[in-house]
């Protein structure tokens, strides 16, 4: 074993430059993998972790203010209750701390019992007056800690005693600033309320599988309680899970690219290294070294580089990703994974160490199986067929390229498998960079482009349906129709609320969320339902949707098709105006206005104002979602940059390997009078033969495969056009050319600094 150890260490000492390059590649791959794991793991497990920590209720009921006694009586009668508690949620309260303030503050007056939030710092509320617990987003944004002072309207200053998180809502600033006060403490100070009122009930069940039965019972016993909305724990999770799903899918794909890149490059490097040492291996075998000695020495040498490099990469990736990942989780009110990440990161380390070891062991195994005499005569691991392609190519390439770039191209093309692997790695990387740029750009448009959400109208006017003709005649209006929207409840699974939307005429002129299955709405008695609703209620084309209108009347519709809609998490149903008005004549109405191409909304808005309407812009992404979109966009752009580094590494490795294997050719050229510029030209040709097909593959892959696939993934939220634009393609191609140039200059500099004599000697 000591001989193996000696050989491995000697191998490392002899080639320090190569060891550093290999180490850098492993570290880069490990860093990317760790980044993906940190963000992916955090997002994937964040909700469950936070819900557990916060003791999130199984069911949250929101309603208009009711006497606590009335509600408590109804809830106490529900089956399978483990616990329940009540809050009074007061909105639009002026809050302030230091120089920060908000007039949209939310105060949660907490009753006794379980609370549904977790304390991250400090302690929970006691029954003493003057204490407040603040939601973590507010604490972070306003710099509040236990002991800080907080102002609420005209109340005396309160002292922050704790910082809390609760995943039932996103954090400030995505949501309004939220603080928790003890109702008992207020009663202590201002006197007990004669008839306390509440508007939120939190319910914990003994057995979660009975949730649906409890929901039916709750709905049945809710008579007289106005504005009831029941939100389940799973319902809270849906949107966050879906949003995280896209990011996780991207990161997993990216880490696979990183791994593929590292594996391909390291395997190629190991093969070239073994190829170079064939004679030495032959001599060792001839003097009695066993196959295991050769394989172990090569593997140990790889392990001595991979283990520390992998550790450095994993640590660096985890450190870099931890901050942004924690901030993203904080934004959606979830907890960072903390120590739970350690096993996953250890797995990354193991993987990044194992791949190079196996990549080195395999060619060593093949070489050691070759007869020693053949090795000493210079037998190669490759097959003679490798010469055929360059010959066939030479006839075609020679007239197209200057001699030196053409030679470079032929040198790279001589290693077909490696060339194919490098082109694939680069092509996939380019495709992902394009996808991320397209996605980042599309996320930006979600903020101000309603059409991204399937909405084709730009304005609404608060006018009666009878004014429709008048609106249609306005300059710049392409179409206008009465639009009705009510919030109803599913009559079977009574916990689910449904936004029922109706138009007079064809609704797809104004709203056309993508149709997933079935057909568009064909007439009265039919409904197109959102995927969210279809999933919750198990609906499919042909099923019956029964809904209870606000007036209490029930309507039944046959489901004609399933659509993807962002509105209300997809819990939406499109019906005809006639069928809605038949059961809900008082449905609120407005006029949806679709503008002609190129017309500014402001122009039509002023005309609408002139006829007495109050125009409003059709909503795109809710304004509060700006921060989340910004965070996601930032992550996507950062990942695109890291992916660019992978491209650079792949290019450098490909050129280094070519230059290393063909050092004698380069030395002959230099001996014949080739300058450093000529060597750069040669390598530029080598880079071009890798970059050109990779760019083509990348652009096509993004346009034909990744863009559509990702658009389908994202369709739960929005209609995204994820094909990269010409500008983005040009930008990425220019970036790729710059990376190729950097790689060429760096490798040429290395190659021309070597002594011609030693390179000729091989």
């Amino acid at each position, binding site marked *: 074993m000591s001989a193996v150890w000696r050989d491995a260490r000697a191998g490392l000492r002899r080639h320090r430059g190569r060891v550093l390059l290999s180490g850098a590649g492993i570290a880069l791959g490990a860093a990317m993998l760790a980044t993906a794991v940190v963000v992916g793991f955090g997002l994937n497990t964040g909700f469950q972790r936070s819900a557990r920590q916060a003791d999130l209720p199984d069911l949250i009921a929101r309603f208009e203010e009711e006497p606590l006694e009335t509600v408590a009586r109804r809830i106490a009668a529900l089956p399978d209750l483990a616990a329940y508690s009540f809050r009074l949620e007061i909105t639009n309260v002026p809050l302030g701390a230091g120089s920060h303030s908000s007039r949209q503050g939310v105060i949660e007056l907490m009753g006794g019992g379980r609370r549904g939030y977790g304390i991250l710092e400090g302690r929970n509320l006691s029954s003493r007056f003057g204490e407040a617990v603040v939601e973590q987003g507010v604490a972070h944004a306003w710099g509040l800690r236990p002991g800080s002072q907080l102002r609420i309207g005209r109340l005396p200053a309160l002292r922050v005693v704790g910082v809390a998180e609760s995943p039932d809502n996103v954090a400030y600033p995505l949501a309004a600033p939220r603080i928790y006060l003890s109702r008992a403490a207020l009663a202590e100070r201002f006197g007990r309320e004669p008839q306390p009122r509440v508007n939120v009930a939190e319910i914990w069940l003994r057995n979660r599988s009975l949730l649906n039965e409890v929901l039916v019972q709750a709905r049945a016993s809710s008579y007289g309680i106005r504005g009831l909305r029941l939100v389940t724990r799973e319902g809270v999770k849906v949107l966050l899970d879906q949003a995280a799903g896209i990011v996780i899918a991207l990161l997993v794909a990216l880490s696979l690219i990183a791994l593929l890149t590292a594996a391909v490059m390291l395997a190629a490097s190991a093969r070239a290294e073994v190829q170079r040492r064939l004679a030495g291996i032959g001599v060792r075998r001839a003097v009695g070294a066993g196959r295991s000695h050769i394989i172990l020495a090569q593997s140990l040498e790889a392990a001595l580089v991979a283990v520390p490099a992998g550790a450095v990469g994993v640590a660096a990736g985890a450190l870099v990703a931890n901050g942004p990942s924690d901030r993203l989780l904080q934004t959606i009110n979830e907890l960072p994974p903390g120590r739970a990440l350690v096993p996953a990161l250890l797995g990354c380390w193991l993987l990044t160490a194992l791949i190079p070891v196996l990549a080195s062991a395999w060619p060593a195994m093949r070489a050691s199986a070759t007869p020693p005499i053949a090795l000493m005569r210079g037998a190669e691991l490759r097959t003679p067929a490798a010469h055929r392609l360059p*010959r066939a190519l030479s006839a075609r390439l020679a007239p197209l390229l200057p*001699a030196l770039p053409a*030679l470079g191209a032929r040198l790279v093309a001589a290693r077909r498998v490696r060339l194919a692997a490098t082109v694939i790695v680069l092509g996939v990387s380019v495709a992902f960079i394009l996808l991320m740029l397209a996605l980042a750009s599309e996320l930006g448009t979600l903020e101000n482009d309603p059409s991204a959400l399937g909405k084709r109208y730009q304005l609404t006017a608060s006018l009666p349906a009878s004014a429709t003709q008048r609106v249609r005649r306005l300059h710049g209006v392409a179409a206008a129709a009465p639009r009705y929207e009510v919030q109803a409840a599913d009559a079977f699974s009574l916990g689910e609320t449904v936004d029922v939307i109706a138009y007079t005429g064809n609704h797809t002129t104004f709203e056309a969320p993508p149709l997933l299955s079935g057909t568009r709405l064909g007439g009265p008695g039919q409904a197109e339902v959102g995927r969210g609703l279809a999933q919750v209620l198990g609906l499919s084309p042909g099923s019956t949707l029964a809904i209870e209108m606000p007036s209490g009347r029930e309507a039944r519709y046959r489901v004609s098709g399933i659509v993807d809609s962002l509105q209300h998490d997809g819990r939406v149903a499109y019906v005809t105006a006639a069928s809605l008005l038949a059961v809900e004549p008082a449905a609120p109405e407005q006029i949806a206005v679709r503008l002609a191409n190129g017309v500014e909304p402001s122009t039509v808005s002023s005309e609408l104002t002139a006829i007495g309407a109050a125009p409003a812009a059709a909503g795109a992404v809710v304004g509060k979602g700006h921060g989340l979109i910004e965070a996601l966009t930032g992550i996507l752009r950062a990942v695109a940059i890291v992916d660019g580094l992978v491209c650079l590494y792949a290019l450098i490795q490909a050129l280094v390997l070519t230059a290393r294997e063909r050092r*004698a*050719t380069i030395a002959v050229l230099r001996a*014949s*009078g080739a300058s450093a510029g000529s060597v750069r030209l040669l390598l530029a040709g080598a880079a071009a033969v890798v970059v050109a097909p990779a760019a083509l593959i990348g652009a096509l892959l993004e346009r034909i495969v990744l863009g559509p696939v990702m658009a389908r993934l994202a369709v739960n939220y929005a209609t995204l056009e994820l094909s990269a634009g010409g500008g983005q393609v040009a930008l990425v191609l220019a970036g790729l050319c710059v990376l190729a140039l950097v790689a060429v200059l760096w490798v040429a500099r290395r190659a021309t600094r070597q002594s011609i004599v030693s390179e000729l000697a091989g």
Partner: protein
Amino acid sequence: MLEACGLVKGVGRGRAHRRVLAGVDLRVEPGELVAVLGRSGSGKSTLLHLLGGLDRPDEGAITVAGESLVGCSERALTLIRLRHIGFVFQSFQLVEELSGRENVLLPTRLSGAPPGGAARALRLMDGLGVAAVSDHLPHELSGGEQQRFAIARALVNEPDLVLADEPTGNLDTAAAADLLGLLRAITDQGRAVVMVTHEHDVAGAADRVLEMADGRLG
């Protein structure tokens, strides 16, 4: 044509340092074929590398076609190699992906090479009798044919000085004799040829034989 004075070259560092050349003087005239004879490790290849500007001496001066190789920049040295020096290597060093003709044309495609390279290459291949196999890849050629292409490549830019490192080392007796004839033909065109060899028979074909021993030419 070639003049070298007081060439000193050492290899290794510290205790491992060894002086390979200990003051070599050499002068070669146009049209002269000079053989440097010596045992393996005597420093003859090192001398050839210095004369060709592939390596720099620790001390001494070298002039090729009136241009000094010592003290000039790497760029200038590259140009001197391109315009004045041709190399013939023992293992031929043909680029395996290129045909014989493309190998010969390679130096003509370098920036600064004299014009008319393609015509010269054709003439050379004709003259050396390898035109018929010029589209073959190196592994499809015999050793003698490979060496002829290597010689054509060394001559294609019409150098004043041709340096040959063990040019017969990989050839059989008949092919070696052919090669010596070719080197003689080169000198007949007014070029100087310096070849290093450890074979007395080969050295015997030269105009002048210099023996390398203890880092000096005798």
